[in-house]
């Protein structure tokens, strides 16, 4: 037996279980991002409309998700969906739903910001050549907004990945939950295991998020020139 405790990581199928947990974390983040970005694009477009009630409602939606911490959002969905609306979803789907709605709120603001900073003459030229409102968004505004919003979107993605660490709170078998099981199962034989298991999870998150934030930084610098 070693005194370092690193052997806990590789004993039995521990390492592959941790990787499996990491995969759960990643697919939940990806799915939530995908749904949230699509929904957020539409909400962001609607926030540039002239209709006041629509803008007000979407603004309130955004502010709600900004004020309530994600932990609380997760518990709201976890307790309220089954009890009030009789919707019994597995915890993974509750998480995807919550994160997607949160991403949509945050992304709607990014999209709105990018859309209104597309030069005004672009919109007017589009209207002048007879594009419909939808064509204007589809062919003129959204493609131009995309480059502007890309760095902020990638930053949002790193936040989503970090936020998935909360999944263990609603008992999703994510990388942290599996790590805790391994720690508890090996607590007697490897009291130091806890240090290495949490260390590895720390490293996992870093490995996923670091390249993304590096990319966001590069794109941001490129945008400013």
């Amino acid at each position, binding site marked *: 037996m070693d005194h370092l*405790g690193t052997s806990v990581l590789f004993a039995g199928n521990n390492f592959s279980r941790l990787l499996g947990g990491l995969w759960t974390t990643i697919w939940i983040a990806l799915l939530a991002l995908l749904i949230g970005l699509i929904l957020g694009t539409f909400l962001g477009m609607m926030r540039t409309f002239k209709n006041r009630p629509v803008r007000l409602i979407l603004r309130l939606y955004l502010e709600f998700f*900004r*004020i*309530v*911490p*994600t*932990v*609380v959002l997760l*518990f*709201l969905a976890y*307790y*309220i969906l089954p*009890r*009030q609306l009789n919707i019994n979803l597995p915890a993974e789907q509750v998480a995807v739903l919550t994160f997607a709605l949160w991403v949509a709120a945050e992304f709607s603001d990014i999209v709105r910001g990018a859309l209104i900073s597309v030069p005004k003459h672009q919109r007017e030229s589009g209207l002048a050549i007879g594009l419909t409102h939808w064509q204007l968004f589809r062919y003129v505004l959204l493609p131009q907004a995309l480059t502007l919003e890309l760095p902020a979107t990638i930053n949002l993605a*790193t936040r989503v990945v*970090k*936020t*998935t*660490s*909360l999944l*263990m*709170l609603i008992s999703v078998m994510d990388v*942290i939950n599996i790590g805790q099981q391994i720690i508890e199962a090996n607590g007697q034989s490897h*009291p*130091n295991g*806890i*240090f290495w298991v*949490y*260390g590895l*999870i*720390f490293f996992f*998150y*870093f490995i996923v*998020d*670091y390249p993304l*934030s590096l990319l966001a930084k590069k794109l941001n610098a490129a945008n400013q020139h």
Partner: protein
Amino acid sequence: MDTNIIQAAIPKFIEGFKVTIWLSLIGIIGALIVGLICSLLQYFKVPIVSKIISAYIELSRNTPLLIQLFFLYYAFPVIGLKLSATFCGFIGLTFLGGSYMSEAFSGGFNGVSNTQIDAGKAIGMSRRQLARYVVFPQGLSLSMPALSANIIFLIKETSIFSVIAIPELTNTALDLIGIYYRSNEYLLMLVIAYAIILIPLSIVLTILERRVRYGSFGN
């Protein structure tokens, strides 16, 4: 909804409220101090130290607070460093917030326009005078929006303290739900409690941002 349940829980929520406010306050002050020191050392490009600071910033920004707290609270005792939950919360928030604040300050310092710096040089200011009288006053005002966004972010992050059983707002609510099984009332109170902290604060911060906008003039 049962108003009796809500009334009965108010004292407990007030306790949680105090813990959240107190930990946010010291955590944010800690983060501002760490952030300012880090950004200054990076601004002056102090050799080696600024490399270490870059590594710290990347490490802290790209990992979740939850794992940072678990590491502090559960893994550090193994190597002989046993800290109380509250102290871990403070250290965790300062560790996480320090990097965010540092990036905010750096963004401000680097945003000061070159004409200002050239003008300072032209009237014969030394490097230190430039920093003291030109770059910092303007940089601080430029970093204000990012700083206030970080303050709001850090207060929300204190909700994660509930995982190491610090009796702040979220932990209080989850405890009460566990005991009395009334999720509606307690979750509503929890959302309202965060709104009571964050809505007035974000209004005050917006006003403050407008007040100190002088840095963006003359750009």
